[in-house]
């Protein structure tokens, strides 16, 4: 192994890393530059005429702002349902001995990818139709929660498994009731895990297209991910100005939520005092 060979190998490594970085950075750079360009294209370049006109144009779209509110509603609703149900289920599964518990968990996890998947859309549509929940946000929340819960329970159970039982036993000896133990001990100690699940749920819902697209009829109720589909010019080509501007606004809440949760709770997946 000569020096020259080592240098060449090192150079090639950096070139590879640079190419990969560029590949992932380009869409982000486009998202940051195109909304401020008066005539955006698919290329990434510094806006020729810096303008906020695109934001004003988006304001004229009757559904743009409402769809972001809808996304927030769906995200918050699903997050609440998933976190509460997953916390209770994971706590029970972690602490109670049930025969075949692990098989149950893995089975659920396997099925969850089917439930919100394309394959099950027809039966799910029929089910929601029979329940009279077509065009209802609650119906969408239910279906999305159903799809996310198994993975959430699975992740949270692992988290709660790492919380020593002696915390709860100690509280029990002091006379705490099961609900007090959950409120005073388990939930606060599991908070980083719960925050992780909450953020993960919102991100999943924020980006989900198919379920709300199929179950919601009224354009007033459609979330942002579904609305983007309607941004075309009269000529039938994609309206890049609107799409890029809307995408930027669409991504900001998720980034803010992520930063908030991260600074507040940190994301970690173990409980207890480190020793």
């Amino acid at each position, binding site marked *: 192994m000569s020096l020259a060979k080592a240098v060449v190998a090192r150079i090639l490594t950096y070139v590879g890393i640079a190419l990969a970085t560029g590949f992932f950075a380009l869409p982000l750079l486009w998202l940051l530059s195109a909304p401020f360009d008066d005539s955006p294209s698919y290329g990434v370049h510094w806006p020729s005429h810096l303008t906020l006109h695109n934001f004003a144009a988006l304001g004229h779209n009757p559904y743009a702002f409402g769809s972001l509110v809808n996304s927030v509603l769906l995200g918050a609703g699903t997050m609440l349902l998933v976190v509460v149900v997953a916390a209770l289920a994971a706590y029970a599964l972690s602490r109670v001995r049930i025969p075949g518990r692990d098989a149950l968990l893995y089975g659920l996890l396997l099925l969850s990818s089917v439930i919100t998947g394309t394959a099950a859309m027809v039966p799910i549509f029929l089910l929601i139709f029979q329940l009279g929940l077509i065009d209802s946000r609650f119906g969408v929340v239910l279906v999305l929660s159903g799809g996310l819960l198994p993975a959430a329970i699975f992740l949270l159970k692992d988290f709660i498994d790492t919380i020593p039982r002696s915390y709860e036993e*100690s509280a029990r*000896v*002091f006379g705490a009731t099961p609900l007090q133990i959950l409120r005073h001990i388990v939930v606060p100690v599991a908070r980083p895990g719960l925050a992780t699940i909450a953020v993960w749920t919102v991100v999943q819902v924020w980006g989900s297209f198919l379920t709300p697209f199929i179950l919601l009829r009224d354009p007033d109720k459609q979330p942002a991910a579904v609305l983007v589909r309607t941004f075309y010019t009269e000529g039938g080509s994609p309206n890049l100005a609107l799409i890029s501007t809307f995408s930027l606004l669409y991504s900001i809440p998720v980034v803010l939520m992520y930063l908030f949760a991260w600074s507040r709770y940190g994301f970690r997946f173990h409980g207890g005092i480190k020793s």
Partner: protein
Amino acid sequence: MVTVEGLTKEFPGGVRALDGLNLSIMDGEFFALLGPSGCGKTTLLRTIAGLESPTSGAVRIGDRDVTPLAPGARNVAMVFQDYALFPHMTVRENIAYPLKIKRQPRGEREARAGEIGGQLGLAGLMPRRPAELSGGQQQRVALARAVACRPSVFLFDEPLSNLDARLRLEARTFLKRLQRELAVTTVFVTHDQAEALALADRIAVMDAGQIRQIGTAREVFRRPSTTFVANFIGSTPMNLLSGEVRGDGIAVAGGTVPRPDGLSDGEPVTVGIRPEYLPVLTSAQHGALSGEVSIVEHLGTSSLVTVEIDGELVAGTVAEGDEPDTGTRVWLRPVPGRVLIYRVGDGTLVS
């Protein structure tokens, strides 16, 4: 007073952790449950606490049968091996937690937490979280929390095992003084015989879900009632040698020890002598055991000398500075009155 009557605990799968235990612990007593791991000592403690329900039998605290009661209704406080301090609460909140459960007003419980924390030398640490404390401090917080709920019984599960060796001695003295001051009945579990001997007023030595001997530290150390207890108690293992009753003595390892009553001629027995009561001599003595020095281990103020006698290894002690060289011939003469004779069949002490 804590009384345990015919307590049996069988876990699913048929493991019998407790096997018809009877035990009574006096008021204000510091009581140790001692035994090797898996002997059922922790299960017994948890059953007294109410964290395990017995398969049969009863637990009484004072004149109250607490067997059907939930842990919180028994008025006991437990300190866990890992202390189980709540990581999201400060030291003050941890100590005040039992009072919060008892619905005492905030002002009162904070005052009491401060008072107890002060007593246990935690005054400057009250706003900290458990992760910011040393092991010894964490242990004192756990004790303070147990003291705060004014229980009628303390239950300690291996209270010293999470501390390093030097801190353990300090904490041991601290624990004993605290128990004396509070005079609350205390049951603690340990696998460390030295800890049990040092702390406890009385010790129950357990094995396989049963109690092998109950007695004061002195009794258990001086007269272990079975070869199991003899083997378990003492920092250096007791010599257990096979011997035979012959005439007016017992022949063992080439020497003779006095014979107690109640044995027939020619009966095989096990002779137990602690190394501490088996001084190593360099001149021949009548009735002494004799052999060649095989290993010398320094223990500080004395040395442990392992002597090979007819292929059997026997340990004796010698004062510091008098150690014989390996390979030399030495004599071991048991201290009178310190030789224990056990029956071979069931390993019980011949008194």
